[in-house]
């Protein structure tokens, strides 16, 4: 048997198994940990699919931010006692019709996959053709910030909206640290400068090889999270305006450049080929800082008021 195919098949099986465990296990802690394992396996899948950009983002976000967010939430839910002991996946006969519909959907999807026509447009060739005018030499960065720059612009807006949504809904209350130990601050002292260095490297690398603003921002955000775990960086509270200003600054910079180009060239984010490289680097640098603070705020921004806890006693 072909070793590469064996590797892929085993990887696929492990991925599906961890996903199934994350859904079906009766214990909440196990579900969350299995999901973290799933994210790490997914990093390997992206590597196998020749997508190092996505693997970088998945590794940085999964290991740094998503994991800590979920573990934090797990602690919050676990303490009330409501989280533990949820029923499994297929416990009752009532669920049978839903499962049947899902299986039919799966069959339909797989059938659609099996006789899919070949694509009529050759996107990789189109990208390769336009590359000389893009200002960068790495195709994924060219797509992200030049050919489909408006997607990225709106994505940054979506991230800000998510943070606004959290502020509107009400921030979760800061939870006390369960244990403190002396090694973590020492680790943070060495690791965070290295992470900053890695982020700058990734930002610079984005123009000619896998890397870029998103990955750099994810690594930076992970560094801020580590500083918080080491109790160097206290939680942020909503009153700190520099956070909002910095988050908006990257988006505004992007928006200003887009508006300027719209007036000069008549196209949203149609860079002149000569200045494209410089403009992309400018936008990416701004985005790295803004996105990093935005992502870190998902974990660090916490309410400074004590939680209103009605009837904690009589919940079953």
């Amino acid at each position, binding site marked *: 048997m072909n*070793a590469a195919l*064996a*590797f892929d098949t*085993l*990887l696929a099986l*492990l991925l599906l*198994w*961890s996903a199934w*465990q994350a859904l079906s296990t009766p214990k909440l*802690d*196990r579900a*969350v*940990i*299995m999901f*973290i*394992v799933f994210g*790490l396996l997914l*990093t*390997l899948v992206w*590597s*196998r699919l*020749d997508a*190092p950009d996505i*693997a*970088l983002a998945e*590794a*940085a976000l999964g*290991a*740094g931010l998503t*994991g*800590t967010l979920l*573990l*934090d939430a*797990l*602690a919050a839910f*676990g*303490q009330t*006692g409501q989280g*533990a002991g949820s029923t499994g996946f297929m416990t009752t006969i009532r669920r049978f019709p839903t499962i049947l519909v899902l299986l039919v959907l799966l069959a339909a999807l797989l059938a659609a996959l099996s006789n899919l026509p070949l694509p009529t447009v050759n996107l990789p060739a189109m990208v390769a053709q336009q590359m000389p005018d893009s200002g960068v030499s790495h195709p994924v960065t060219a797509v992200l910030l030049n050919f489909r720059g408006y997607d990225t612009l709106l994505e940054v807006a979506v991230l800000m909206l998510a943070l606004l949504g959290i502020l509107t809904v009400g921030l979760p209350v800061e939870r006390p*640290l*369960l*244990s*403190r*130990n002396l090694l*973590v601050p020492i*680790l943070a002292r060495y*690791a965070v400068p*290295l*992470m900053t260095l*890695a982020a700058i490297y*990734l930002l610079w*690398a984005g123009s000619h*090889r*896998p*890397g870029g603003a998103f990955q750099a921002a994810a*690594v930076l955000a*992970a560094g801020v*999270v*580590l500083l918080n*775990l080491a109790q160097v960086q206290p939680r942020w509270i909503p009153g700190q305006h520099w956070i909002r200003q910095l988050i908006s600054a990257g988006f505004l910079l992007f928006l200003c450049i887009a508006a300027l180009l719209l007036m000069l060239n008549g196209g949203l984010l149609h860079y002149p080929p000569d200045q494209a490289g410089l403009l992309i680097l400018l936008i990416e640098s701004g985005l790295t800082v803004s996105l990093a603070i935005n992502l870190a705020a998902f974990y660090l921004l916490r309410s400074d008021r004590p939680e209103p806890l009605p009837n904690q006693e009589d919940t079953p």
Partner: protein
Amino acid sequence: MIGSELLLALLLLVNLGAALIRAAQGPTAADRMLAALLFGSTGVGILVLLAVIQQTPALIDVALTLALLAAISGIAFAQRAWSQAVLGRRRGTATKTEDNDAA
């Protein structure tokens, strides 16, 4: 030469699968977390092997990033999540099963 490295990567993936069995069995939450931590070493190993096999040096950057950030979720687990409440009322039984394992 590439073939032997692919076989080594396959071997490491089998190791990961075996670690997932430990994650499924537990018995404590920390035992499950160990499987996630295994990625700090085994996952990084697979990534560098893939970088050589597929001749994509960028995957070494991915391995470096993963190595840099590997500690964070483990620390978050120990300092924020692993409490008596998460461990549940099963704490007494959890230690007991461990003793049974040993015997």
